[in-house]
């Protein structure tokens, strides 16, 4: 491999990228846009769930319960309904996602039987937030119920017994339980894969389409020189993009970063080799810019956004899907990113996903180097 030829190809590729507004935008603007879009757009937290109430009793007691909901940061009482028939309308129009119905005999039943029932109706079109909202509602009611019991026992002169078991929970790694902290590190993987594979998917296809390949094939350049020369500039661009993403994550979104930058650099370099080789492989195989770019999109954005675990936890997926995620190269990088950002893990702790990335990098680079034939047919 002659360094001089590699350098000539790399310089040429950089010049072409610099002079092509589309590629330049892909390289510099897309990371910023993706970070903002996904950083703000994908938010799995539920807070301020709009709640409608139908208080058929209207007592001090029932109002005290509803005030508890108002006090919780998960809920926001938006409307007091008058008739049961209004509930369906309020939900249909999206005015509320949870409706609480306090029956007219609420206080009386509790006084007589020491059991009370109230109805919570949840809009489960989004099952994930519906489940969370139900859980939070139960927690609010349980708290209220414990309070009522304590007050009643005090009145009868009995000592207040704390519940036998109390869970003292402490949240590690993402103390604020912000889904943004969980998601943003993964967005880095999405951005690098998208940009890296897109740019490289064009690089060989462009030579075929513009008719420059025939001449290139007639020069002494070797397939290996072509591969390295073509990927080197995109590797640099990829690292630059990773820097942009990191700056956004730390400065703009204030995501904690507890790991070492060298760990990030090593693993990001590995991941870039994987996605760049993949884009190159697609480009060599497809030979048309539009086709190659579509295939590259299909191989990156789709599986990464759905199966890498960047936003949707893998251990909550059905077993067969979980099995598939092991084949998704980005899964390992997302695991590494989250661990480096939130847990501050080093390379030793991440040995398994790092080795998986190394295996992918070697395999794809090898395939890419072999795929190109210096022949036209």
């Amino acid at each position: 491999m002659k360094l001089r030829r590699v350098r000539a190809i790399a310089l040429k590729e950089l010049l072409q990228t610099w002079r092509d507004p589309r590629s330049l935008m892909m390289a510099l603007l897309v990371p910023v846009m993706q970070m903002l879009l996904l950083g703000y757009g994908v938010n799995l937290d539920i807070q301020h769930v709009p709640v409608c109430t139908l208080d058929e009793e209207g007592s001090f007691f029932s109002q005290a319960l509803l005030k508890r909901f108002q006090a919780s940061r998960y809920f926001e009482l938006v409307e007091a309904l008058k008739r049961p028939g209004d509930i369906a309308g309020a939900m249909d129009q999206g005015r509320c996602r949870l409706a609480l119905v306090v029956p007219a005999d609420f206080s009386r039943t509790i006084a007589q039987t020491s059991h009370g029932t109230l109805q919570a109706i949840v809009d489960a079109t989004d099952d994930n937030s519906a489940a969370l909202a139900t859980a939070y509602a139960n927690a609010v009611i349980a708290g209220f119920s414990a309070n009522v019991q304590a007050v009643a026992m005090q009145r009868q002169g009995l000592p207040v017994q704390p519940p036998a078991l109390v869970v003292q929970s402490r949240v590690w790694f993402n103390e604020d339980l912000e889904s943004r902290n969980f998601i943003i590190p993964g967005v880095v993987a999405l951005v690098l894969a998208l940009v890296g594979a897109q740019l490289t998917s064009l690089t060989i296809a462009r030579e075929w389409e513009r008719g420059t390949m025939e001449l290139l094939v007639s020069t002494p350049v070797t397939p290996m020189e072509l591969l390295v020369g073509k990927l080197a500039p995109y590797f640099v661009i990829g690292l630059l993009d990773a820097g942009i993403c990191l700056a956004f994550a730390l400065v703009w979104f204030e995501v904690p970063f507890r790991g070492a930058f060298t760990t990030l650099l090593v693993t990001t370099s590995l991941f870039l080799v994987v996605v760049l080789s993949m884009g190159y492989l697609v480009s060599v195989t497809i030979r048309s810019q539009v086709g190659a770019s579509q295939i590259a999109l299909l191989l990156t954005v789709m599986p990464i956004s759905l199966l890498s675990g960047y936003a949707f936890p893998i251990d909550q997926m059905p077993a067969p899907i979980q099995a598939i995620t092991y084949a998704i190269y980005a899964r390992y990088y997302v695991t590494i990113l989250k661990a480096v950002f939130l847990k501050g893990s080093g390379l030793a702790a991440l040995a398994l996903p790092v080795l998986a990335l190394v295996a992918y990098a070697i395999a794809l680079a090898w395939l890419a180097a072999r795929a190109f034939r210096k022949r036209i047919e």
Partner: protein
Amino acid sequence: MDAVVRASGLAKRFGGVVAVDGIGFEVSHGEIFGLVGPDGAGKTTLLRMLAGVMAPDAGAASIDGIDVVAAPERLRERISYMPQRFGLYEDLTVDENIRFYAELFEVPPAQRRERAARLLAASAMEPFRRRLAGQLSGGMKQKLGLTCALVHAPRVVLLDEPTTGVDPLSRREFWRILYALRSEGVTLLISTAYLDEAERCDRLALLQDGHLRFCESPAELRARMPGALVEVASTSPREVRAALAPLAGVRSVLLVGDGVHVHVDNAARVPQLEAALSERAIAFDAARVVMPTIEDLFVALLGPGAQAAA
């Protein structure tokens, strides 16, 4: 004769179409060897196989004693190939293109500068060194292509229709460069659609339907044309053709710029031709025996009924 390029039995088919069917020839050192033939005759495929960018289905070829089929990579430095379609980067400037190819061939920078300056001067391209290749005219693109092809000083140059779409002035510059190369001992293979250019070659290969029909010097090809060629200048060439074509001894009538070329079996037929035209009151200036052009040879040797004539 020391042959630099040797080809034998070269064949290539694409699907069911035979593009090149068992072609063999030799080109000697310092020769300008022309490939002529109608579109689809197999010129481009032949040059691609010789340049080592396309593998033949059968046959053998060597350049400078190096097997083109088995070791195309050993050949790269010695040859230069300029494809029919403009193969340079339109988003790079003239200088950047030259530099790119010089670097791929590992030309020392000093040599690159000296050669580029000389070649650009010869093709009147100096003022455009900083212009993007995409903004050059068709002729200038081809001259840039030639400059890039020659910057590593190849011993054998393969040019696929390099002057198609090039203005006459640039074509003349082009050929001046080719002649200069020949005098330096460079061997040139050039395919062309312009038959006046074919006359400039030392030897010609006439291709048709993937077959090599003739491979000789222009003079030898002329000798193959039996009979004589009569040029009739007239303002109404179509009528002249209609009047003369059925006559005895007339093999073919070809419309040319300002008249017709009549291929007859004997120069003594001229008075008969003149009589036939006068009889029908068709105006004509003169009928005289001329040297056949390559185009005439083409029609005579490759045209309909040519096999019978040859």
